[in-house]
């Protein structure tokens, strides 16, 4: 298995632990990633609110590269994944838009390359049965809330690879690892995403509601596959606690970190020290010395 890799900006900064755990886990799974050379930002949350062509041109530039590599694109960030899927969809459907974008890029991009979210590749392509065979540690007794967020679920016709309202792919992965995924109603509610800086109150409220529900229903940790969700739930957690007089102390793992624990990888190979809410006490409690 080999993919054209589009890490996206977060994986080089605030989600460098996600990147570390992907590197370590994919090595174990023998999934090869070839980084798209000179990749640039997809425009994320800003391009599509300020211009009509920019949010298509930015992803198309790197999709064009991937098309030349002859590989499917793998994106670990839900926002990048979403923008790239929307771009390929729009450029395939709309010849006039395609012409405009190609004129700007001075290219002949056709929108054919397929973009995959990392979780889709791990769970559906590599498969849970194959993963089960490689496991050396059991997450028995660990109760987590799998949180999917918005951008790998909606708009469902273009981006979803599971049920868009109540997906279960991360839940099934956690069960494969021996852990327990709680049933909860906020799997695809929004965390406020990119408003973390410019409209923090909204993010604090939405993340409070998520953390509160997860804790009420017995979750000991949260599992995510999006850097924006992870940042808001983990790095804003103390502020949420202070503002709402709550106590959560819920670690927020990238799914690749827990998968890595199951595969027997060490904490430093998975960037676990880079999490804000300390995950080590919980892992110790579950007899997971890492």
């Amino acid at each position, binding site marked *: 298995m080999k993919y054209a890799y589009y890490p996206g900006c977060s994986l080089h900064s605030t989600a460098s632990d996600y990147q570390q755990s992907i590197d370590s886990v994919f090595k174990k799974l023998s999934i090869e990633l070839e980084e798209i050379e000179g990749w640039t930002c997809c425009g994320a949350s*800003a391009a599509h609110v*300020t211009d*009509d062509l920019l949010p298509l041109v930015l992803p198309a*530039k790197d999709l064009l590269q991937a098309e030349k590599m002859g590989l499917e694109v793998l994106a670990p960030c839900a926002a990048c994944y979403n923008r790239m899927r929307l771009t390929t969809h729009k450029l395939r459907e709309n010849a006039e838009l395609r012409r405009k974008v190609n004129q700007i890029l001075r290219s002949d991009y056709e929108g054919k390359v397929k973009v995959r979210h990392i979780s889709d590749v791990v769970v559906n392509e590599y498969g849970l049965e194959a993963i089960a065979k490689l496991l050396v540690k059991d997450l028995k007794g660990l109760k987590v809330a799998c949180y999917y967020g918005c*951008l790998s679920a909606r708009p469902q016709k273009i981006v979803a690879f599971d049920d868009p309202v109540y997906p279960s792919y991360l839940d099934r992965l956690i069960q494969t690892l021996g852990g327990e995924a709680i049933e909860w109603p906020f799997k695809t*509610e929004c965390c406020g*995403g990119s408003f973390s800086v410019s409209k923090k109150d*909204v993010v604090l409220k939405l993340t409070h509601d998520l953390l509160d529900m997860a804790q009420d229903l017995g979750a000991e940790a949260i599992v995510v596959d999006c850097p924006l969700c992870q940042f808001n739930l983990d790095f804003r957690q103390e502020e949420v606690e202070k503002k709402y007089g709550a106590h959560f102390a819920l670690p927020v793992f990238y799914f690749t970190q827990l998968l890595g624990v199951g595969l027997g990888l060490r904490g430093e190979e998975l960037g676990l020290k880079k999490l804000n809410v300390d995950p080590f006490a919980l892992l110790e409690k579950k007899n997971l010395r890492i």
Partner: protein
Amino acid sequence: MKITLGDHSRVFGKKISDMIGQNIDGCYQCGKCTAGCPIAYAMEVPPHEVIRLVQLGREEEALALHTIWLCASCETCTSRCPKNIDVAAAMDALRVLAFRQGQTGVEKEITLFHKLFLKVIERFGRVNDLQLMGRYNLLTLNPLKDWRLGRKLLAKGKLKLTTPPVKGLQEFQEIIKRVLAKRGEGA
């Protein structure tokens, strides 16, 4: 809010319909978008009423709303609309028009963040969080905003003081220049 049908025009509804590639008149105000909107609680006019204003051609009112900037693009509205109206795309179209007309004062911090985000990627090719936060804090006259968080991110190696230059940056900047030259011609 109470919306009366007296004051209306076809021009604006048509403009937004053209931008999103579908006829926005298909919306029959069921309110399903609003019911699912995670940020409706903070909006002065809920999403379905924004669509109504667009249908009635009330451009000035629509573009002056906090609502259009508060939309987090979670796409719940778009996914649930029984008439398949792309409500999130309509919000984008309204914001694009507001940006073009320089009408960004109603949510200064949100719009500043978007502008700086694009400036930073134009300069570096990728998001540089330290640059983005630094510029944002300076321009909002709040230099110490999130300083604890910043310190923690630095300590954890999640913020980098310098980033290696992106290969092909100049070509990328040329591409952005060509987009900006096209701006306003419509997509």
